[in-house]
């Protein structure tokens, strides 16, 4: 009986916290969220490329194991490894462009300026003060 009461109590607390958290994003200042909103499309690209990288690294690992355990012949191994490596290099280059920080802030600022010029006005006012 006490177990079911405990489960019930935990469920109620969980529900109340979840309801509060559902509302809370709308209570905070929207301006403070803008910068993060713009990261989303980049995050998506990084996610896609990271998944691609993860799969290619695993493919290389498998390929190495198959070669070492003599499941595939050397000529095939070399061809497949080159193929996977080339794809992996391509993915890493793309990841480096996004993830390496080059042009990162400038791109976000440009997007912010285009969509929310008031963000810069507020930032400028803040600096003047």
């Amino acid at each position, binding site marked *: 009986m006490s177990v079911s009461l405990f489960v019930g109590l935990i469920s109620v607390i969980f529900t109340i916290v979840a309801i509060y958290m559902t509302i809370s994003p709308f209570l905070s200042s929207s301006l403070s969220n803008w910068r993060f909103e713009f990261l989303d499309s980049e995050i998506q690209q990084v996610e896609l490329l990271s998944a691609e990288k993860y799969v290619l690294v695993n493919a290389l690992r498998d390929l190495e194991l198959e070669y070492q355990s003599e499941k595939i*012949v050397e000529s095939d191994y070399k061809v497949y490894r080159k193929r996977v490596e080339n794809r992996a290099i391509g993915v890493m280059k793309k990841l480096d462009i996004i993830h390496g920080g080059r042009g990162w802030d400038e791109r976000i600022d440009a997007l912010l300026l285009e969509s929310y010029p008031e963000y810069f006005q507020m930032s400028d006012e803040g600096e003047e003060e």
Partner: protein
Amino acid sequence: MGLLGTIALYAAMWTTVIAISLNIAAGRSGTKRLVNSGRFASFAASGFVFTASAILLHALLTHDFSIQYVASFSDKSMPLFYLIGAFWGGQAGSLLFWVAVISVTLTLCLNANKNRYQDLMPWVAVTSLSVMLGLLFILVFVSNPFEAFHIIDDPTIGKGLNPLLQTPKMVIHPPSLLAGLASMTIPFGFAIAALITKNFSNAWVIAARSWILVPWFFLSIGNMLGGMWAYEELGWGGYWAWDAVENAAFMPWMMVTALIHSLMIQERRSMLKRWNVALMIFSFLLTVFGTYITRSGLIQSVHTFAQSGIGNYFLAFLMFFSITSLGLFVWRWPSMKSARKLDSPVSREAAFIFNNWLFITMTAIVFFGTLWPRAKEFFWDQEVAIGPMWFNRWMVPMGLILLALMGVGTAIAWRKATMKNFKKNFVKPILFTLVASPSLIWSYWHFRGQFLGIIPSPNDMAYSITAVVLIIFATAVIFEETFRGVNARRKMHDETLTEAIVRLTMKQRRRYGGYVIHLGMLCAYLAFAGNAMKIETDVSLKRGESVVIGDYTLHYLGLTERNDPEKLLVMANISVEQNGKEIYKMYPGKAKFYASPMSPTSEIDIKSSPLEDLYVALVNHDASGNTVALKVFIGPFTWWFWFGGLVLVFGTLITMWPTRENQAPSKNIFGKMAKIAVVTAVLLLTFAPLGIMMFEANSNWGNAKRIEKHMLMRGEIAE
């Protein structure tokens, strides 16, 4: 209490509507704030479902008979174990349990991916919440587990759980199966999310694949425990009868098995996108279809106790999700075109594709066999019966091809197999098979088989010998593969044998977990092969008489009757001898519950060993107890079916165990506690079937003595 439960259900329903709206807005706008808010709204909806579940559990444990459900499915004499089982023992409770499982899996899935896949997750939530909404609608308006009695007819005692369900296995089997069916919602959610966002990338595969193993894991346990229940309770000596409801749970299992293999090809080769999305959709639709045929009474089954009037709601549910998902699928057809093709038709990829076609064909056969009698009756007004023989005629040869593929697919190289590596990979396993198969078959026949005194039919013998040969080949391939992998690792990293085995398994969990799963399946195949030598006999014995079956001699010593206010227990006392020595006593019995006198339960006694099972069921007896009719089976290798199930579940755990990359660090104590709770629950569930089996085999829980002991403990009968 009932009112609180109903309020929680209403709150869950309306919060689900809000959560769906927020997640649709999040999915369309991609705004992080909405994504977060939608996620927490989904948690809130789940929280209300958990609250409703806790209230029902509390009502059952405190015997609150003012609630109709509690009065209908429990009574004060039921032990805690069965009181918990009563939660899903009735229709409304099982529906609530279903929603609770979706809530748990959705909460875990959203939490695990809170910082990832932000384009996909809102749509996964929308799909899962829509399924929840449909079920909550039925719970609120049609089948409310909190419906109360009026004051006038408020009962003080309950009716108790269906006697057939009062076995330890039935407390675990339905929730496992329901969990398997319910957790199919998440992969379905991923399929719909991919169709909406047009994201069929490797990120989607990685996100979806671990959630596909969850339903597979639960369906495997559920099907196995269902087989165990049928074997030990129904008294027909087998664990699989191609019963409609068994088929309903087996079809999604086959679909998901196919999907697990084909997703590997998409991940490696970016192929089969359409195929995988279709498999995810159909696996889910089959779970709803299975529920529809079980609940509607459309098909005659041993599960008639599950029938109810909500079948039509499930039909509407099935139609809605079929039209929506298949419509989306057709709409996105061009976007799912795969860029790559197979390097070679002689490769592991090709073997996997062939395995997929086999699984789909087998699913189609089971689907046809399950529905055809009903269709024939409906359209042509003709009655036909499709029994186990029909299913076996198709499924046994196809199962053997699948078994052969299990060996070939494991040994063959990815991408392209050449003659040179074909020789390298296959010669040793084939040589081992050629030596080991005749030796093992001859040894079994010489040391054991011939003493059973049965010559199988040529057909059965051919199938069994083929199965054994293929089992040995596939086992040899798995060990050869593992041995080579370990050797390669030792060469590369200069490790000891143990280090190499452990690290190889940890690094390549999916590969070696998969091999362990295959070993489990091979054990199950051994049990199927043993059926060729199965003995089934009906005997009638007078007190003091004996009968010889195989090399066992069964003496009937007498009948014991026990009576308590709820039931009459009749128990035959049988001494079993082998080679002139008593090896054990057996107590098959029958219990007649006065609440349901027309459906007496069989208390079958089974002595199980890896070599064979001796299975005795009491069919009938005369009034004086001088004569009894018994059904006796000797089932070679049946034990391996249950053992194989355990190995399979263990392998699934290895495969599912999160890799370092997938593990989200738990920073707070609640996160750690949640992780420990999930791991403990999974481990308990994994070992539950074997635990129950061992407990029953080594105690009186597997025969009529368990009921007698229960009566004695409660002081309802004297020693």
